[in-house]
Protein backbone atom coordinates (compact mmCIF):
# COMPACT_ATOMS: atom_id res chain seq x y z
CA UNK A 1 0.00 0.00 0.00
CA UNK A 2 1.36 3.39 -0.86
CA UNK A 3 0.33 6.69 0.65
CA UNK A 4 -1.94 9.09 -1.10
CA UNK A 5 -0.38 12.56 -1.02
CA UNK A 6 -1.82 15.85 -2.32
CA UNK A 7 0.36 18.89 -2.74
CA UNK A 8 -1.55 22.01 -1.72
CA UNK A 9 0.97 24.80 -2.10
CA UNK A 10 4.72 25.00 -2.65
CA UNK A 11 5.35 24.15 0.99
CA UNK A 12 2.27 22.28 2.20
CA UNK A 13 0.95 18.78 1.50
CA UNK A 14 -1.79 16.48 2.76
CA UNK A 15 -1.01 12.85 3.46
CA UNK A 16 -4.06 10.60 3.61
CA UNK A 17 -2.79 8.07 6.12
CA UNK A 18 -5.40 5.43 5.31
CA UNK A 19 -6.42 2.48 7.44
CA UNK A 20 -3.16 1.76 9.21
CA UNK A 21 0.21 3.24 9.96
CA UNK A 22 2.17 0.57 11.79
CA UNK A 23 5.31 -1.54 11.74
CA UNK A 24 4.34 -2.95 8.35
CA UNK A 25 4.30 0.33 6.44
CA UNK A 26 6.18 2.81 8.63
CA UNK A 27 9.30 2.61 6.45
CA UNK A 28 7.19 3.32 3.40
CA UNK A 29 5.69 6.34 5.13
CA UNK A 30 9.20 7.61 5.84
CA UNK A 31 10.25 7.17 2.20
CA UNK A 32 7.11 8.98 1.09
CA UNK A 33 7.57 12.09 3.20
CA UNK A 34 11.31 12.11 2.45
CA UNK A 35 10.57 12.74 -1.24
CA UNK A 36 8.32 15.68 -0.35
CA UNK A 37 10.73 17.13 2.21
CA UNK A 38 13.39 17.12 -0.52
CA UNK A 39 10.98 19.12 -2.67
CA UNK A 40 10.83 21.76 0.09
CA UNK A 41 7.49 20.77 1.52
CA UNK A 42 7.65 21.61 5.21
CA UNK A 43 4.05 21.55 6.39
CA UNK A 44 2.26 18.23 6.47
CA UNK A 45 -1.42 17.70 7.16
CA UNK A 46 -2.01 14.09 8.18
CA UNK A 47 -5.54 12.97 7.43
CA UNK A 48 -6.47 10.31 10.00
CA UNK A 49 -10.15 10.05 9.11
CA UNK A 50 -9.90 6.39 8.08
CA UNK A 51 -7.13 5.30 10.42
CA UNK A 52 -7.91 2.34 12.62
CA UNK A 53 -4.39 1.38 13.60
CA UNK A 54 -1.53 3.60 14.72
CA UNK A 55 1.09 1.66 16.64
CA UNK A 56 4.28 2.89 18.24
CA UNK A 57 6.39 2.21 15.13
CA UNK A 58 3.92 4.20 13.06
CA UNK A 59 3.94 7.04 15.55
CA UNK A 60 7.73 6.88 15.54
CA UNK A 61 7.73 7.49 11.79
CA UNK A 62 5.61 10.63 12.33
CA UNK A 63 8.12 11.75 14.96
CA UNK A 64 10.90 11.29 12.41
CA UNK A 65 9.00 13.56 10.05
CA UNK A 66 8.60 16.14 12.79
CA UNK A 67 12.30 16.00 13.66
CA UNK A 68 13.11 16.58 10.02
CA UNK A 69 10.93 19.62 9.38
CA UNK A 70 10.84 21.33 12.79
CA UNK A 71 14.27 23.01 12.38
CA UNK A 72 12.78 24.87 9.36
CA UNK A 73 9.73 25.83 11.42
CA UNK A 74 7.67 23.25 9.59
CA UNK A 75 4.52 21.83 11.09
CA UNK A 76 2.83 18.48 11.32
CA UNK A 77 -0.93 18.88 11.77
CA UNK A 78 -3.32 16.07 12.68
CA UNK A 79 -6.69 16.31 10.97
CA UNK A 80 -9.92 14.47 11.59
CA UNK A 81 -8.31 12.30 14.26
CA UNK A 82 -10.04 8.93 14.68
CA UNK A 83 -10.61 7.39 18.09
CA UNK A 84 -7.71 4.88 17.99
CA UNK A 85 -5.29 7.65 16.97
CA UNK A 86 -6.64 9.90 19.73
CA UNK A 87 -5.77 7.25 22.33
CA UNK A 88 -2.14 7.08 21.20
CA UNK A 89 -1.83 10.86 21.02
CA UNK A 90 -3.18 11.19 24.56
CA UNK A 91 -0.93 8.52 25.97
CA UNK A 92 2.27 9.95 24.53
CA UNK A 93 1.23 13.55 25.21
CA UNK A 94 2.07 14.40 21.62
CA UNK A 95 -0.91 16.73 21.29
CA UNK A 96 1.54 19.18 22.82
CA UNK A 97 3.54 19.07 19.59
CA UNK A 98 1.04 18.25 16.85
CA UNK A 99 -1.79 20.72 16.40
CA UNK A 100 -5.10 18.98 15.88
CA UNK A 101 -7.88 20.11 13.58
CA UNK A 102 -11.43 18.75 13.36
CA UNK A 103 -11.22 18.34 9.60
CA UNK A 104 -8.78 18.41 6.71
CA UNK A 105 -10.50 21.61 5.52
CA UNK A 106 -9.88 23.34 8.86
CA UNK A 107 -6.24 22.29 8.80
CA UNK A 108 -5.84 23.53 5.20
CA UNK A 109 -7.24 26.89 6.15
CA UNK A 110 -5.01 27.23 9.19
CA UNK A 111 -1.83 26.21 7.41
CA UNK A 112 -2.22 27.94 4.08
CA UNK A 113 -3.78 31.27 4.94
Amino acid sequence: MSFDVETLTSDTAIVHVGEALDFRNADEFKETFQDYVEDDIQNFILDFSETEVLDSTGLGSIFSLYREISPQDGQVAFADVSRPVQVVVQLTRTYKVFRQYPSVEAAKEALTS
Partner: protein
Amino acid sequence: MAEHSILIVEDDRTVRELLKHRLGKHYNVATATNGQDALDHVESSIPDLIISDIMMPKMDGFALQSALQSDKNTRVIPFIFLTARADEPARKQGERTGVDDYITKPFDMDQLLSRVERLLERVEVFQSNLDAEIGRDFSNRLLPDRLPDVNGYRFDFHAEAHAQGGGDLFDWVETDQGTYFLTIGDVMGKGLRAKFYAYSFLSYVRGTLHTLLKESTSPAAVMQSINEMLLSDEVLEDTFASFLLLHWNPHTHTVTYANAGHCRPVLVTPDGPEIAEHSDLILGLEEDTSFSDVTLDLAPGGALFAYTDGLTEQPGRNGNMLGEAAMRDLAAEAQDRDQPIEAIRTGTLDRSAEDDFQDDILILWMQRSPNTD
Protein backbone atom coordinates in the same frame (compact mmCIF):
# COMPACT_ATOMS: atom_id res chain seq x y z
CA MET B 1 7.63 -12.52 3.16
CA ALA B 2 9.61 -10.14 1.01
CA GLU B 3 10.33 -11.28 -2.52
CA HIS B 4 13.83 -12.63 -2.96
CA SER B 5 16.13 -11.10 -5.53
CA ILE B 6 18.14 -13.23 -7.94
CA LEU B 7 20.91 -12.10 -10.27
CA ILE B 8 21.33 -14.13 -13.47
CA VAL B 9 24.70 -13.83 -15.19
CA GLU B 10 24.63 -15.33 -18.67
CA ASP B 11 25.96 -14.15 -22.06
CA ASP B 12 23.62 -16.32 -24.13
CA ARG B 13 20.54 -14.22 -24.66
CA THR B 14 18.16 -17.15 -25.11
CA VAL B 15 19.19 -18.88 -21.89
CA ARG B 16 19.19 -15.57 -20.04
CA GLU B 17 15.68 -14.66 -21.15
CA LEU B 18 14.39 -18.15 -20.43
CA LEU B 19 15.74 -18.05 -16.88
CA LYS B 20 14.47 -14.56 -16.35
CA HIS B 21 11.02 -15.57 -17.51
CA ARG B 22 10.72 -18.69 -15.39
CA LEU B 23 12.36 -17.37 -12.21
CA GLY B 24 10.59 -14.03 -12.61
CA LYS B 25 7.32 -15.70 -11.69
CA HIS B 26 8.58 -16.29 -8.15
CA TYR B 27 11.44 -13.89 -7.63
CA ASN B 28 12.66 -10.43 -8.32
CA VAL B 29 15.11 -11.09 -11.18
CA ALA B 30 17.96 -8.93 -12.48
CA THR B 31 20.31 -9.93 -15.30
CA ALA B 32 23.92 -9.32 -16.31
CA THR B 33 25.71 -10.39 -19.47
CA ASN B 34 29.17 -11.00 -18.03
CA GLY B 35 31.16 -11.03 -14.79
CA GLN B 36 32.06 -7.36 -14.88
CA ASP B 37 28.47 -6.35 -15.51
CA ALA B 38 27.44 -8.59 -12.58
CA LEU B 39 29.97 -6.99 -10.22
CA ASP B 40 28.65 -3.52 -11.10
CA HIS B 41 25.16 -4.71 -10.32
CA VAL B 42 26.17 -6.29 -7.00
CA GLU B 43 27.87 -3.07 -5.98
CA SER B 44 24.62 -1.15 -6.17
CA SER B 45 22.34 -3.85 -4.80
CA ILE B 46 23.23 -7.18 -3.22
CA PRO B 47 21.05 -10.03 -4.51
CA ASP B 48 19.87 -12.94 -2.37
CA LEU B 49 21.24 -15.44 -4.87
CA ILE B 50 23.43 -15.50 -7.99
CA ILE B 51 23.14 -17.96 -10.87
CA SER B 52 26.08 -17.65 -13.21
CA ASP B 53 27.36 -19.17 -16.41
CA ILE B 54 31.07 -19.97 -16.57
CA MET B 55 32.22 -19.15 -20.11
CA MET B 56 31.52 -15.47 -20.79
CA PRO B 57 33.37 -12.62 -22.54
CA LYS B 58 35.17 -9.87 -20.57
CA MET B 59 35.02 -11.57 -17.18
CA ASP B 60 34.10 -15.24 -16.87
CA GLY B 61 32.16 -16.94 -14.08
CA PHE B 62 35.24 -18.16 -12.23
CA ALA B 63 36.70 -14.66 -12.11
CA LEU B 64 33.37 -13.26 -10.93
CA GLN B 65 33.09 -15.85 -8.21
CA SER B 66 36.66 -15.19 -7.03
CA ALA B 67 36.00 -11.45 -6.94
CA LEU B 68 32.88 -11.98 -4.83
CA GLN B 69 34.84 -14.27 -2.49
CA SER B 70 37.41 -11.57 -1.82
CA ASP B 71 34.86 -9.21 -0.27
CA LYS B 72 33.22 -10.15 3.04
CA ASN B 73 29.96 -8.46 2.05
CA THR B 74 29.55 -10.53 -1.09
CA ARG B 75 31.23 -13.76 0.03
CA VAL B 76 28.05 -15.03 1.62
CA ILE B 77 25.75 -14.63 -1.38
CA PRO B 78 24.54 -18.11 -2.38
CA PHE B 79 26.10 -18.98 -5.72
CA ILE B 80 25.03 -21.49 -8.38
CA PHE B 81 27.13 -22.25 -11.45
CA LEU B 82 25.52 -23.25 -14.71
CA THR B 83 28.11 -25.44 -16.38
CA ALA B 84 28.28 -26.83 -19.88
CA ARG B 85 29.42 -30.43 -20.21
CA ALA B 86 32.66 -29.14 -21.66
CA ASP B 87 33.41 -27.33 -18.40
CA GLU B 88 33.22 -30.50 -16.32
CA PRO B 89 36.98 -31.19 -16.26
CA ALA B 90 37.72 -27.61 -15.24
CA ARG B 91 35.13 -27.79 -12.51
CA LYS B 92 36.46 -31.07 -11.14
CA GLN B 93 40.00 -29.83 -11.31
CA GLY B 94 39.48 -26.77 -9.22
CA GLU B 95 37.13 -27.49 -6.32
CA ARG B 96 36.03 -23.99 -5.57
CA THR B 97 34.96 -22.80 -2.16
CA GLY B 98 31.84 -20.71 -1.84
CA VAL B 99 29.93 -22.40 -4.67
CA ASP B 100 26.68 -23.81 -3.39
CA ASP B 101 25.63 -25.80 -6.40
CA TYR B 102 26.53 -26.77 -9.97
CA ILE B 103 23.88 -27.34 -12.56
CA THR B 104 24.83 -28.84 -15.86
CA LYS B 105 23.42 -27.52 -19.11
CA PRO B 106 21.11 -28.37 -20.70
CA PHE B 107 19.31 -28.15 -17.39
CA ASP B 108 15.94 -29.23 -16.23
CA MET B 109 14.01 -26.11 -15.27
CA ASP B 110 12.03 -27.75 -12.47
CA GLN B 111 15.18 -29.08 -10.92
CA LEU B 112 16.77 -25.64 -11.08
CA LEU B 113 13.73 -24.05 -9.49
CA SER B 114 13.64 -26.54 -6.65
CA ARG B 115 17.35 -26.06 -5.93
CA VAL B 116 16.96 -22.30 -5.90
CA GLU B 117 14.03 -22.57 -3.57
CA ARG B 118 15.89 -24.88 -1.19
CA LEU B 119 18.93 -22.68 -1.12
CA LEU B 120 16.94 -19.53 -0.37
CA GLU B 121 14.97 -21.36 2.29
CA ARG B 122 18.15 -22.46 4.00
CA VAL B 123 19.47 -18.90 4.08
CA GLU B 124 16.17 -17.64 5.44
CA VAL B 125 15.97 -20.21 8.24
CA PHE B 126 19.53 -19.43 9.23
CA GLN B 127 18.79 -15.70 9.26
CA SER B 128 15.62 -15.96 11.32
CA ASN B 129 17.28 -18.28 13.85
CA LEU B 130 20.09 -15.80 14.19
CA ASP B 131 17.63 -12.90 14.62
CA ALA B 132 15.70 -14.80 17.27
CA GLU B 133 18.88 -15.63 19.14
CA ILE B 134 20.17 -12.04 19.11
CA GLY B 135 16.70 -10.80 20.07
CA ARG B 136 16.58 -13.10 23.08
CA ASP B 137 20.06 -12.06 24.08
CA PHE B 138 19.13 -8.36 23.93
CA SER B 139 15.89 -9.00 25.80
CA ASN B 140 17.79 -10.67 28.61
CA ARG B 141 20.23 -7.81 28.85
CA LEU B 142 17.37 -5.32 29.04
CA LEU B 143 16.10 -6.88 32.25
CA PRO B 144 17.70 -7.22 35.68
CA ASP B 145 18.63 -10.62 37.11
CA ARG B 146 17.61 -9.73 40.66
CA LEU B 147 15.04 -7.47 42.30
CA PRO B 148 15.00 -5.11 45.30
CA ASP B 149 14.40 -6.92 48.57
CA VAL B 150 12.85 -4.55 51.09
CA ASN B 151 11.29 -5.30 54.46
CA GLY B 152 7.57 -4.58 54.54
CA TYR B 153 7.21 -4.68 50.76
CA ARG B 154 6.68 -7.24 48.08
CA PHE B 155 8.28 -6.52 44.76
CA ASP B 156 7.24 -8.59 41.76
CA PHE B 157 8.33 -8.27 38.20
CA HIS B 158 7.55 -10.19 35.06
CA ALA B 159 8.58 -9.76 31.44
CA GLU B 160 8.09 -11.97 28.45
CA ALA B 161 9.45 -11.40 24.99
CA HIS B 162 7.44 -11.84 21.84
CA ALA B 163 9.03 -12.63 18.47
CA GLN B 164 7.51 -9.46 17.00
CA GLY B 165 8.23 -7.51 20.18
CA GLY B 166 10.04 -4.28 20.65
CA GLY B 167 12.33 -2.57 23.09
CA ASP B 168 10.83 -2.87 26.55
CA LEU B 169 13.33 -2.23 29.29
CA PHE B 170 13.51 -2.23 33.07
CA ASP B 171 16.29 -1.49 35.50
CA TRP B 172 16.72 -0.40 39.11
CA VAL B 173 19.43 0.94 41.35
CA GLU B 174 19.64 1.46 45.10
CA THR B 175 20.74 4.93 46.19
CA ASP B 176 23.11 5.72 49.05
CA GLN B 177 20.10 6.66 51.17
CA GLY B 178 18.53 3.22 50.93
CA THR B 179 15.91 4.40 48.44
CA TYR B 180 15.41 2.95 44.97
CA PHE B 181 15.42 4.42 41.52
CA LEU B 182 13.43 2.41 38.98
CA THR B 183 13.49 2.83 35.20
CA ILE B 184 10.81 1.43 32.91
CA GLY B 185 10.88 2.24 29.23
CA ASP B 186 9.72 1.30 25.81
CA VAL B 187 11.81 2.22 22.80
CA MET B 188 9.59 2.72 19.78
CA GLY B 189 9.73 0.33 16.92
CA LYS B 190 9.59 -3.39 16.52
CA GLY B 191 12.01 -6.24 16.23
CA LEU B 192 15.75 -6.38 16.45
CA ARG B 193 16.27 -2.72 15.63
CA ALA B 194 14.15 -1.56 18.58
CA LYS B 195 15.87 -4.01 20.89
CA PHE B 196 19.26 -2.80 19.77
CA TYR B 197 18.38 0.85 20.39
CA ALA B 198 16.79 -0.01 23.72
CA TYR B 199 19.98 -1.77 24.70
CA SER B 200 22.25 1.13 23.69
CA PHE B 201 19.91 3.50 25.40
CA LEU B 202 19.69 1.57 28.64
CA SER B 203 23.48 1.26 28.73
CA TYR B 204 23.66 5.04 28.59
CA VAL B 205 21.00 5.48 31.26
CA ARG B 206 22.70 2.95 33.53
CA GLY B 207 26.02 4.66 33.01
CA THR B 208 24.82 8.16 33.78
CA LEU B 209 22.25 7.41 36.47
CA HIS B 210 24.94 6.85 39.03
CA THR B 211 26.44 10.30 38.39
CA LEU B 212 23.07 12.02 38.06
CA LEU B 213 21.75 10.60 41.32
CA LYS B 214 24.62 12.23 43.20
CA GLU B 215 23.21 15.60 42.20
CA SER B 216 19.50 14.93 42.40
CA THR B 217 17.04 12.15 43.06
CA SER B 218 14.38 14.03 41.10
CA PRO B 219 13.06 11.76 38.33
CA ALA B 220 12.09 14.87 36.35
CA ALA B 221 15.65 16.21 36.42
CA VAL B 222 17.01 12.84 35.32
CA MET B 223 14.38 12.66 32.57
CA GLN B 224 15.50 16.05 31.29
CA SER B 225 19.09 14.84 30.93
CA ILE B 226 18.01 11.66 29.17
CA ASN B 227 15.93 13.68 26.71
CA GLU B 228 18.81 16.02 25.94
CA MET B 229 21.12 13.09 25.41
CA LEU B 230 18.66 11.42 23.07
CA LEU B 231 18.35 14.56 20.97
CA SER B 232 22.05 15.28 20.75
CA ASP B 233 23.38 11.77 20.16
CA GLU B 234 23.79 10.97 16.48
CA VAL B 235 23.53 7.22 16.82
CA LEU B 236 20.27 7.51 18.69
CA GLU B 237 18.86 10.10 16.30
CA ASP B 238 15.39 9.01 15.26
CA THR B 239 15.00 7.01 18.46
CA PHE B 240 11.93 7.77 20.52
CA ALA B 241 11.10 6.25 23.85
CA SER B 242 8.46 6.43 26.49
CA PHE B 243 9.97 6.39 29.95
CA LEU B 244 8.70 6.09 33.48
CA LEU B 245 11.19 6.96 36.19
CA LEU B 246 10.25 6.16 39.78
CA HIS B 247 12.01 7.15 42.95
CA TRP B 248 10.71 4.84 45.64
CA ASN B 249 11.36 5.61 49.28
CA PRO B 250 10.32 2.64 51.45
CA HIS B 251 11.01 4.67 54.63
CA THR B 252 8.46 7.38 53.86
CA HIS B 253 6.28 5.00 51.79
CA THR B 254 6.28 7.32 48.82
CA VAL B 255 6.93 6.96 45.12
CA THR B 256 7.90 10.06 43.18
CA TYR B 257 7.63 9.68 39.44
CA ALA B 258 8.17 11.48 36.18
CA ASN B 259 6.41 10.10 33.12
CA ALA B 260 7.52 10.80 29.55
CA GLY B 261 4.61 9.57 27.47
CA HIS B 262 4.64 6.11 29.02
CA CYS B 263 1.61 4.00 29.94
CA ARG B 264 0.29 5.55 33.12
CA PRO B 265 0.76 3.39 36.22
CA VAL B 266 -2.08 2.40 38.52
CA LEU B 267 -1.95 3.27 42.21
CA VAL B 268 -4.01 1.01 44.44
CA THR B 269 -5.31 3.02 47.41
CA PRO B 270 -7.68 2.13 50.28
CA ASP B 271 -10.42 3.74 48.11
CA GLY B 272 -9.64 1.55 45.14
CA PRO B 273 -7.34 1.78 42.12
CA GLU B 274 -6.64 5.07 40.38
CA ILE B 275 -4.58 6.05 37.36
CA ALA B 276 -1.52 8.18 38.13
CA GLU B 277 -2.67 10.87 35.76
CA HIS B 278 0.19 13.25 35.24
CA SER B 279 2.52 12.69 32.33
CA ASP B 280 4.69 14.69 29.96
CA LEU B 281 5.86 14.43 26.37
CA ILE B 282 7.59 11.32 25.07
CA LEU B 283 11.42 11.40 24.86
CA GLY B 284 13.38 12.31 21.75
CA LEU B 285 10.95 14.75 20.19
CA GLU B 286 11.52 18.25 21.55
CA GLU B 287 14.60 19.82 23.05
CA ASP B 288 12.99 22.08 25.61
CA THR B 289 10.46 19.61 27.00
CA SER B 290 9.91 20.12 30.69
CA PHE B 291 9.08 17.28 33.03
CA SER B 292 7.59 17.37 36.47
CA ASP B 293 7.64 15.15 39.54
CA VAL B 294 4.52 13.84 41.19
CA THR B 295 4.61 12.07 44.56
CA LEU B 296 2.25 9.24 45.46
CA ASP B 297 1.67 7.80 48.94
CA LEU B 298 1.54 4.08 49.44
CA ALA B 299 -0.97 3.24 52.18
CA PRO B 300 -0.65 -0.05 54.10
CA GLY B 301 -1.72 -2.76 51.65
CA GLY B 302 -1.49 -0.25 48.81
CA ALA B 303 0.26 -1.08 45.57
CA LEU B 304 1.73 0.42 42.44
CA PHE B 305 1.24 -1.38 39.13
CA ALA B 306 3.35 -0.31 36.15
CA TYR B 307 3.43 -1.91 32.69
CA THR B 308 4.23 -1.41 29.03
CA ASP B 309 1.87 -1.09 26.05
CA GLY B 310 1.91 -4.84 25.31
CA LEU B 311 -0.82 -5.09 27.95
CA THR B 312 -3.00 -2.13 26.96
CA GLU B 313 -2.68 -2.85 23.24
CA GLN B 314 -3.70 -6.49 23.63
CA PRO B 315 -6.88 -6.89 21.55
CA GLY B 316 -10.03 -7.27 23.62
CA ARG B 317 -13.04 -9.43 22.76
CA ASN B 318 -14.69 -6.65 20.78
CA GLY B 319 -11.54 -6.17 18.70
CA ASN B 320 -10.57 -2.89 20.36
CA MET B 321 -7.44 -2.64 22.45
CA LEU B 322 -7.95 -3.31 26.16
CA GLY B 323 -6.75 0.13 27.17
CA GLU B 324 -6.18 1.85 30.47
CA ALA B 325 -9.56 1.14 32.07
CA ALA B 326 -8.87 -2.59 31.96
CA MET B 327 -5.56 -2.00 33.75
CA ARG B 328 -7.38 -0.32 36.61
CA ASP B 329 -9.75 -3.28 36.94
CA LEU B 330 -6.86 -5.74 36.78
CA ALA B 331 -5.08 -3.92 39.60
CA ALA B 332 -8.19 -4.17 41.76
CA GLU B 333 -8.44 -7.90 41.07
CA ALA B 334 -4.75 -8.50 41.73
CA GLN B 335 -4.58 -6.60 45.02
CA ASP B 336 -5.49 -9.46 47.36
CA ARG B 337 -4.00 -12.28 45.38
CA ASP B 338 -1.00 -14.38 46.36
CA GLN B 339 0.43 -13.98 42.90
CA PRO B 340 -0.68 -10.53 41.71
CA ILE B 341 1.31 -10.65 38.49
CA GLU B 342 -0.11 -14.02 37.51
CA ALA B 343 -3.57 -12.60 38.24
CA ILE B 344 -2.88 -9.68 35.89
CA ARG B 345 -1.50 -11.95 33.18
CA THR B 346 -4.40 -14.34 33.20
CA GLY B 347 -6.89 -11.52 33.75
CA THR B 348 -5.59 -9.82 30.60
CA LEU B 349 -5.81 -12.98 28.51
CA ASP B 350 -9.30 -13.72 29.87
CA ARG B 351 -10.43 -10.36 28.51
CA SER B 352 -8.66 -10.85 25.22
CA ALA B 353 -9.79 -12.22 21.90
CA GLU B 354 -6.38 -13.92 21.59
CA ASP B 355 -4.97 -16.87 23.54
CA ASP B 356 -1.57 -15.31 23.78
CA PHE B 357 0.14 -11.97 24.03
CA GLN B 358 0.77 -10.17 20.74
CA ASP B 359 3.74 -8.11 21.89
CA ASP B 360 6.40 -7.98 24.60
CA ILE B 361 4.82 -7.56 27.99
CA LEU B 362 6.35 -6.14 31.13
CA ILE B 363 4.62 -5.96 34.50
CA LEU B 364 5.86 -4.46 37.73
CA TRP B 365 3.93 -4.81 40.95
CA MET B 366 5.14 -3.32 44.24
CA GLN B 367 2.96 -3.56 47.29
CA ARG B 368 3.31 -2.36 50.84
CA SER B 369 2.34 -5.05 53.32
CA PRO B 370 -0.92 -4.35 55.18
CA ASN B 371 0.67 -4.51 58.64
CA THR B 372 3.33 -1.81 58.51
CA ASP B 373 3.15 1.77 59.73
